[in-house]
């Protein structure tokens, strides 16, 4: 038997040029489809509507002349953010009241996968409605106090509305704003900006642009240094 013929079979068993090109083209095409979908989604959402009393960067609270700016990146589904609020909320309120610091809240949505209803995004959009109604700080505290457990269904829209009313948002505009997730694109924009700013977890706290540890002492030291 002609054993010499084996190498010929071996050569043929390798991928043909057509196979190589075909697979590479198909994989690149799949990637191109993903890119196309991403771009068309971005184009479809258009420029985000910004709530009254808020900016495209977040929700500012306090006097514009304050020397220290505290940026707080938070996700309403994030238990550590709730703990941070319990730990340092009073400190921050006092710094704002005394004019030492102003706060920019960035309610981002990076934990949507921890609820079945994209609670992070819905709660953030609802907080935009609360900003428009002028009750953002109170609403944040209520959202934390009623934070749903991870991997659950999140709070239903009706409860997001009733918590806003509890915070002092009167009128039917607020309810419509929450149920229509009017500020969904604002939330997406805040989230994208935070990623570009290098924020990869919540809570992230910055004082005048520098990340500080999530302790009360670190916050106080950084704000004091800025005076």
């Amino acid at each position: 038997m002609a054993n010499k013929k084996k190498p010929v079979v071996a050569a043929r068993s390798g991928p043909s040029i057509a196979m190589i090109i075909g697979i590479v083209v198909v994989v690149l095409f799949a990637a191109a489809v993903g890119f196309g979908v991403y771009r068309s989604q971005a184009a479809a959402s258009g420029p985000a509507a910004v709530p009254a009393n808020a900016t495209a960067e977040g929700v500012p609270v306090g006097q514009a002349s304050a020397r220290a700016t505290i940026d707080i990146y938070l996700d309403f589904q994030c238990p550590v953010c709730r703990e941070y609020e319990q730990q340092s909320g009073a400190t921050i309120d006092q710094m704002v009241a005394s004019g030492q610091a102003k706060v920019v809240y960035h309610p981002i949505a990076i934990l949507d996968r921890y609820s079945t209803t994209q609670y992070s995004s819905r709660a953030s959009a609802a907080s935009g409605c609360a900003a428009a109604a002028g009750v953002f700080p109170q609403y944040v505290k209520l959202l934390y106090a009623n934070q749903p457990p991870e991997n659950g269904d999140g709070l239903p829209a009706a409860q997001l509305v009733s918590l806003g009313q509890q915070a002092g948002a009167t009128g039917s505009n607020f309810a419509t704003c929450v149920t229509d997730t009017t500020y969904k694109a604002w939330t997406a924009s805040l989230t994208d900006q935070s990623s570009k700013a290098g924020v990869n977890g919540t809570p992230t706290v910055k004082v005048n642009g520098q990340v500080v540890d999530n302790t009360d002492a670190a916050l106080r030291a950084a704000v004091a240094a800025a005076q």
Partner: protein
Amino acid sequence: MTPDTPGNPGPAAGDSSTMTAVESPRAQVLPWLSTLARLVLGGVWIAAGVAKITDLEASVRAVRAYALLPEPIVQIVGPGLPPAEILLGVLLVLGVGVRVSAAISTVLMAAFVVGIASAWVRGLSIDCGCFGSGGALAPGATPTYGWELARDGGLLVLALFLIRWPVGRWALDSVLTRKDPT
């Protein structure tokens, strides 16, 4: 380039990847190992792609979190990876173009390993984003670079194995290329 691939007995006899008429024990086992490698690697690709494809913005954030690529490239790689991963997974599971798919997998896995290692070295505090976290760590979690590197390193070895021994059982390749009368 012969990393820890199992069963490589000394000087390879030219055409050991093709079916030899006499079935040595090794010739019986190898095709099944290839099949197993294909199913594992392909299955992970599909799982990773499916986890990410419903939230392409998160995929962009995950790539951006590594702070390695310029922003325009981030916006191509981020949304491009999930569908490419799913396709690679399907090709591998079906056994179509195994050697080419394995070669592409090798390039991607090597890139992931480099990315994760560099994030570790630079002391970044991120999740690898492999399965749709958007690069953000779970609340209160610390990075698990060691485990992520071990996993992707293992998958890299599987991909290299498939480049060397692409022919396995249950592969459409063997149907598509059945011209030789063996």
